[in-house]
């Protein structure tokens, strides 16, 4: 096993799957010659040629729209949107088409498409380069939303996404791209979509996080008897894993870097309230960004949830 960062793990997953399945084709801005602005697709153009690694015009709606046509035709396109904040111009394609094609055609056409995009703050980039609006895409029943939190899971989840018969939005936490290194098996392995994982066992409180916040949560809970659940897939999310842990601990803290109102934490909190209310010993707390636009670098530390805020929430629920 090699020690890889997330960029390398994703690159390996893409290269392995392209070698295994000639239906897999990459398209996006700067994904070919440049290897992607984060170098996630580095080397793939040389290895697989320009027919399978397409440098497209600057055209987010066109990229996702074209990928839908390719998928319906029988290919397995992987579209890269350079930053999540630019996926908004492809939102109609994702919402009105990718997630509904199977339904609208009553199964005659399907859309096995993966849209990869880096997301999240803390990289000192210009505006719209640090968005975390995953919840926008989750109220979209035909679109799976997957968020790895480290290299091992990134590879296994991406391989599963590439083989999924329906469209998947694959959010890559930009801040963690090169921050974490993990042992990543060289061979083929998949991690089931829709399954959370137990990132850390505990018994006094359940902390639920995903993607970019997972690393921060794990750093914050050292002195607590906290069970940490890494959702990995947001849509559909692993209701059973969440409820199972909550029923054991009776306390819940949800951490996400998106703004609070209508963030994905709201869905989790509502589900816990509906289905495990009588097991709760404390209010469900959310640690999130405030309800303001994502700021530029100088204010990012005041925007993203901090270890202190996470610990304060833990202290509060543990008082009950």
């Amino acid at each position, binding site marked *: 096993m090699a020690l890889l960062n997330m960029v390398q793990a994703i690159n390996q997953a893409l290269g392995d799957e392209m070698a295994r399945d000639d239906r897999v*084709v990459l*398209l996006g801005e700067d994904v070919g010659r440049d290897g992607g602005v984060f170098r996630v697709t580095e080397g793939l153009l040389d290895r697989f040629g320009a*027919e*399978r690694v*397409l440098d*497209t*015009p600057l*055209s987010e*709606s*066109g990229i*996702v*729209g*074209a*990928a*839908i*046509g*390719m*998928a*319906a*035709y*029988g*290919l397995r*396109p992987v579209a890269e949107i350079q930053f999540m904040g630019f996926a908004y*111009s492809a939102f*109609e*394609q994702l919402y*009105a*088409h990718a997630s509904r*094609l*199977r*339904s*609208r*055609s*009553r*199964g*005659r*056409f*399907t859309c096995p498409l993966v849209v990869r995009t880096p997301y999240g703050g803390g990289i000192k980039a210009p505006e719209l380069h640090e968005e975390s609006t995953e919840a926008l895409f989750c109220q979209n*029943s*035909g679109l799976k939303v997957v968020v790895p939190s480290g290299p091992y899971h990134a590879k296994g989840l991406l391989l599963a996404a590439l083989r*999924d*018969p*329906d469209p998947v939005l694959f959010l890559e936490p930009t801040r963690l791209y090169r921050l974490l290194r993990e042992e990543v098996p060289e061979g083929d392995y998949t991690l089931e979509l*829709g399954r959370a994982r137990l990132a850390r066992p505990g018994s006094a409180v359940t902390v639920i996080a995903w993607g970019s916040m997972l690393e921060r949560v794990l750093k914050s809970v050292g002195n607590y008897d906290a069970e940490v659940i890494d959702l990995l897939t947001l849509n*559909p999310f692993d*209701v*059973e894993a969440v409820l199972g842990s909550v029923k054991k601990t009776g306390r819940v803290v949800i951490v996400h870097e998106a703004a609070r109102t209508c963030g994905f934490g709201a869905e989790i909190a509502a589900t816990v309230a509906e289905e495990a209310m009588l097991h709760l010993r404390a209010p469900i707390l959310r640690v999130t960004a405030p309800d303001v636009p994502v700021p530029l670098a100088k204010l990012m530390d005041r925007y993203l949830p901090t270890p202190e805020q996470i610990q304060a929430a833990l202290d509060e629920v543990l008082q009950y």
Partner: protein
Amino acid sequence: MSEEILASFEVRRLGILDETGKADEALMPLLSDAEIWHMYQSMVLARTFDERAVALQREGRLGTYPPIMGQEAAQVGSALALSPADWVFPSFREMGVHLTLGYPAAQLFQYWAGDERGQKSPERLNIFPFCVAVGSQIPHAVGAALAVRYRRDPVAVVAYFGDGATSKGDFHEGLNMAGVFRLPVVFICQNNQWAISVPLKAQTATVSLAQKAIAYGFEGIQVDGNDPFAVYRATRQALDKARAGAGPTFIECLTYRMADHTTADDAGRYRSPEEVAVWRARDPILRLERFMALRGLWSEQAGVEAKARSTETIDAAVQEMEAIPPPAAAELFEATVATLSRRQAGQMKGR
């Protein structure tokens, strides 16, 4: 330093059949009498379907419906140039294309009655579901053309849309990408001159829509959209070019929406009866009848018989549609995703 002309352009306009029914023999496509009759019968079928759909809507037996009346030449003429293996990406006003390609009329009625199962294209055809979000199907056609080229399949891809779609971003993104990659795709714009209440001159500042293609690096041609021979010829040439790997073509079929935008619209609020009367006189079916009469292929009696055949077909399709049981509640979940999530599976059971 000097100033020079970097580029200039011209736009071709193709018309073969004039309003009196006289054809330019030099441009006339090679069609046998039987093929011309098939073209005529297909246009009559499209008109008959359309009249019935509007009537059924008025009786509460269909939902909101967008009439195709006046656009039969653009739809039938182009569809006759296609082969069943070609991939078609329609907007929502192409029922004449569907019918000409052999899509079951009962399914078209079923869809407009509010049953999505009508959108399930038969396996022998590759027709995408109707696209209601204007212009957003154009990139899908471009993607399919990328796949066709990658697979080296001997098929072409056609996207249909209207004049309003040419103002959308996806039109630009799609045509631009098609030009950059020189893809085997034909863009067929039915310019019916009205996007609900917005007339063509308020939709674009250019003298034609066809010329927009020039900015994407490929040919755009305007054809008389009420002339089925011109539409057929232009489509045929564009498809041959696509299949030969010579890149995309944009065909603007200049036609007219003789009816309201939909059955929920009242075009009398925004356009004059005089304008409509001018275009009613240019009815594509009348024009083809005049041509066929001059050739001795058509008579009043033959026209009545053609209409009767179409009426019989449509009667049977309506009967078939109305005999289909309404979708069961489980259809809400059927075919939405390959595997329902546990939450969806619970909701399907009413939890």
